[in-house]
């Protein structure tokens, strides 16, 4: 496949900005059961658009949150609420680190 690729520009799409995953799509992509996803939605770990599970649409960003939550649950034995808390704190830490890098540059100059 590589020869063709060198000359051909591959089209790409950003998965985080899409909002078109159904419950079964998300289950397949993340290799988890729908019961598990319902549990994570109950904790607010992922927030679908739509009222009923059959109407739920998840954003691409949900994929990473579910996958990381599953790893945290398994490796560190967290429950869904604990994993949701860790994910939110990780987002905050990431924002604070970015801000710190910017502010440290002011100190150095």
């Amino acid at each position, binding site marked *: 496949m*590589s020869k063709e690729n060198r000359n051909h520009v591959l089209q790409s799409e950003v998965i985080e900005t899409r909002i078109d995953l159904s419950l079964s799509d998300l289950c397949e992509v993340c*290799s988890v059961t729908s019961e598990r996803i319902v549990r994570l939605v109950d904790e607010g770990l992922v927030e679908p658009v739509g009222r009923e599970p059959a109407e739920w649409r998840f954003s691409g960003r949900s994929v990473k949150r579910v996958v990381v939550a599953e790893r945290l649950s398994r*490796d*560190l034995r967290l429950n869904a609420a604990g994993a949701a808390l860790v994910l939110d704190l990780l987002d905050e830490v990431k924002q604070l680190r970015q801000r710190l*890098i910017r502010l440290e540059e002011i100190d150095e100059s």
Partner: protein
Amino acid sequence: MGVERDATQDEIKRAYRKLARKYHPDVSKESDAEQRFKEVGEAYAVLKDPEKRTAYDQLGADWKTGQDFRPPPNWDQGFEFHGGDSARGSDQDFSDFFETLFGQGDFRGGFTRADHGRFTARGEDTYAKIVVDLQDSYLGATRSITLKHTEIGADGRPAVRNRTLSVKIPKGVRSGQHIRLTKQGSAGAGGGESGDLFLEIAFRPHPNFHVEGKDVYLNLRVAPWEAELGASVKTSTPTGDVDLTIPPHSKAGRKLRLKGRGLPGKNPGDFYAVLQIALPRAETDAQKSAYRDFASSFDFDPRRDQEA
């Protein structure tokens, strides 16, 4: 794992839990967290099993040499790998894990999808991280990327191969987001479709611009008189230079916003110039005298609010 040879099973379990939290690749900021996490898991898999632990104790530290390698920092950058799993949990058989990773190739994706009675299997999705310039997100770009991946060679040994892809970087993409290249993952089996390739985007650090989410910041250095009297200063932005108006009586740290000039998108980010006041250095007598005149022109005590 840093436990004594005579540690109790409970002590080993506690040491493992602590290290697992410290080095979990989703949580840790250590550059070699993924490797350390695997090592800790391997060590625990041995130590929690009394029989294996006895064998380890007899062989001593020599058992470890040869498998204790340290990857360079950012070893996973530009390296294509299979599956999202950083490591298996403590209850998994780690020998099986290593065989999967280094010996046989990983057919996990094939199994999960082939279980529905089909004879074809979709290839696995693969992942890699790539670094792009901030300007690539502003303008959209086509970038040539080289990915290393492991293939089983004709002699049955895994070998590292390179492949170069020409990839469209979507306008407005942000750090930490993933782009999907359809059917560029592992080849399928039995005529099944290839998997997809997911690339995680990171921005190459820029000497002037700092990205926070979709907003972009510049620390803009201005002279004291520009900050106090107001001025129009030429300011660089990722899309080119602009003339920025500094309002009079501006203080250090003041943020001047250029709305919608952050990363593009449906809801574009903003660009912020954060003022920093740069002081001219007094070298000559005339310059020193100018500072003294400056001082005598004001009744100014910068520490007025800090007095005890």
